[in-house]
């Protein structure tokens, strides 16, 4: 007869093991406070990084190369002790290397934090959390169902720097998406880019399709960024800029080969997202394809913290915004009539549904 007995390696015991389940379990240990401290430090961590960007620490250090704190402080024109404290904080974030008094950009900083890094997020970081003051009033937002300062009050003021800041990442995503969905194989595609921001998807597709053309939409003011970016990338002459609200602007039915909804659905709430999907369906030719990029939470809304926190961010910053699950989006797409759904991930954390209008 088998009798439960102590494991030979007590340090490996967990509250639930193959030998035992349930309570009481004699070597129960209290959980660590690390998650609480991580939350407390979150505020400081973000502002350490933000301050470093505002002070031009990363670009300065790229110019200087490995340097002592004295040299860096001198270049930043700030007191040595304060600069050292800030730099040590950035080192603690694993975004700088430090040996004795010499500080140096690490690979992450070179890639993501210097302004001309290959995947620079320097412009994104100040904007990504939404209006900062809204976070200090989050409880009120939850209680009232509305943020104190929703982005919708001044969308141009918020979205212009946001879409400028996110352009590099989104353009990388859109460019690499060709490896998955091969838009460059299409002959003279007509593209409709709703809520295009800086138009990274349109630019990537037009670069890949020399005979393609695009209708680029965003709010008046925000669309200026798209005009500037398309001109910068040499495709503006193949774009028609159509300013206005993507829920109400005129769209030709059955006209487009590709419709892009790039990171816009999560600002619109469930009804708004469904409406955009339905508009996209109407706009597409038979066999035309929708590319719907966003942050999607998993079915249990807990296994993808990045998307979950993004959902909370939307709640904190907008009147209607939330993140939705893959299941919700796939059902909405099917309800609208789309078939052949695929979920592609051109770069990490950037997922896009690709769906077709039936023949």
């Amino acid at each position: 007869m088998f009798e439960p007995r102590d494991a030979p390696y007590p340090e490996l015991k967990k509250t639930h093991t193959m030998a035992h389940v349930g309570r009481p379990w004699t070597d129960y240990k209290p959980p660590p406070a690390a998650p609480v401290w991580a939350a407390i430090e979150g505020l400081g961590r973000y502002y350490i990084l933000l301050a470093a960007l505002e002070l031009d620490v990363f670009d300065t250090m790229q110019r200087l190369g490995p340097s002592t704190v004295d040299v860096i402080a001198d270049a930043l024109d700030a007191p040595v002790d304060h600069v050292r404290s800030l730099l040590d904080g950035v080192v603690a974030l694993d975004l700088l290397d430090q040996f004795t008094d010499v500080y140096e950009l690490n690979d992450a900083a070179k890639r993501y934090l210097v302004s001309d890094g290959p995947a620079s997020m320097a412009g994104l970081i100040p904007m990504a959390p939404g209006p900062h003051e809204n976070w200090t009033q989050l409880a009120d937002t939850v209680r009232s169902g509305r943020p104190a300062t929703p982005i919708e009050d001044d969308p141009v003021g918020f979205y212009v720097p946001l879409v400028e800041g996110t352009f590099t990442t989104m353009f990388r995503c859109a460019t690499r998406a060709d490896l998955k969905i091969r838009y460059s194989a299409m002959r003279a595609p007509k593209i409709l880019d709703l809520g295009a921001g800086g138009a990274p998807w349109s630019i990537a597709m037009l670069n890949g399709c020399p005979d393609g053309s695009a209708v680029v939409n965003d709010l008046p003011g925000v669309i200026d960024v798209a005009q500037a970016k398309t001109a910068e990338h040499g495709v503006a002459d193949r774009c028609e800029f159509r300013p206005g609200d993507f829920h109400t602007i005129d769209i030709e039915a059955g006209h487009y080969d590709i419709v892009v909804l790039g990171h816009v659905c999560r600002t619109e709430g469930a009804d708004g997202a469904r409406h955009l999907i339905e508009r996209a369906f109407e706009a597409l030719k038979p066999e035309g394809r929708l590319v719907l990029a966003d942050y999607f939470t998993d079915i249990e809304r807990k296994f993808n913290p990045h998307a979950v926190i993004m959902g909370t961010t939307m709640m904190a910053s907008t009147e209607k915004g939330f993140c939705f699950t893959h299941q919700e989006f796939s059902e909405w797409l099917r309800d609208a009539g789309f078939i052949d759904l695929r979920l592609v991930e051109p770069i990490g954390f950037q997922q896009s549904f690709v769906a077709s209008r039936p023949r």
Partner: protein
Amino acid sequence: MIEIDTLIVGSHVVTMNPTRDVIRHGAVAVRGNEIVDVGKQSDLEAIYAPKQTVGSDRFVVTPGMVNTHIHITGEPLTRGYVPDDTPFEENVFMWLCPLYSVFTAEEERLSAQLAAVEMLKSGTTTFLEAGTIRFLDDVIDGLVEVGIRGRVGNWVWDLPPEPDVYKQNTDAAIDMLQQQLVDHASVADGRLGTWSILVGHTTASDPLWKAARELADEHGTGMSFHMSPAKLDPEAFVAEFGHRPMIHLAELGILRDDVAITHCVQVDDQELAIMAEAGVSVAHCPTTALKVSYGVTQIGKMPEMVKAGVNVSIGTDGNNASNYSDLMRATYLVAGLFKDARQDPQMFPAEMAYEMATLGGAKTMRMQDTIGSLEVGKRADIVLHDTDRPEWRPLLNVANQLVWSADGRGVHTVFVDGVKVVEAGQMTTIDEGTFYDRCQRAGEAITARSGLPDKAKWPVL
């Protein structure tokens, strides 16, 4: 003349009886769900007056094969979605668990039907399920409609803390197990029933292992679970208990001759001896071992198991570890893997591989008295292979060609329990015209809902 329902005739009747007789111009007489005679066609035609005669010299007649490990839910509708260059743990925890978690009841029913259709159309008439993920009632309902024989059961575990949708605690797992053994002990005249099926590996506490054992005893069923495909299981058991899985299970009193253990690639000699002494069966899934790189050709002890008296049968496993449910393809691999690994052509000759796919499977499922061979008194689970196909001609050595030449595509007609469920390569029990479209749509819906990206390396235009 004696009245019977069906006389099945063929150029060769592969009986798989104790002397392994192959009858030229043979026939099988069927009344109801039972085989009443096997012999020369001319002899049986002189004795019996059949309501129908099926077959001709164009066909090789064999017993239905027995697939002793197949995931009929969670996998068929996501076939091949998991990249084949995914390490084992990533394969299970990052891909399979999320896919399993988003199935609806209707999709699990459809998934089970797809698996059953593929098995039947490739000559497998009986299967042992790896574990229904969530909706057993719907799955059984779907299987009744298709007409296959099998033993099923819920996916029972109590240690993994997630995902929520099919998380179980010990009490709930035991309750579920008990309930299914009571509610579905015998369905469709015994064609379908439930077993004491655990996920296995390191997912069950000792109390659950023991409860599953006791419930199998109480209800007279077998037990089935996964164990030791990769090093993860033995390493975890050694860390937890100081010894390897088979030793621990033997100490718990789990291992008996009604136990079917899947994989068993990473077992040492001491474990092998314990398994042989207990009389367990092993469900060897060769394609999974290859695709998920278990190392079966390097460290697998299947030849030693057979030599020690362990009954080794064959499974096709899930459609992301092994994309097909055609047991003839898996049997082909069984015949070949160890020939090459040991540089010894006497490893698993075709005849032995085919025994493993029929009689071995029947023994694993504790049905050796009713299926696995064409003998008087056994159930009429019969397959007709069409030899008017290039891979079957010339037909000079039927056993060799069943394993090395043919595959399930040559299966023409299939009987289960005396009922013709496949005729001329088409299902008689369901409408295949709409079936595959439903499967396609369901597969796309499941993968889209799962949140797992399409990792196919070639662009889709």
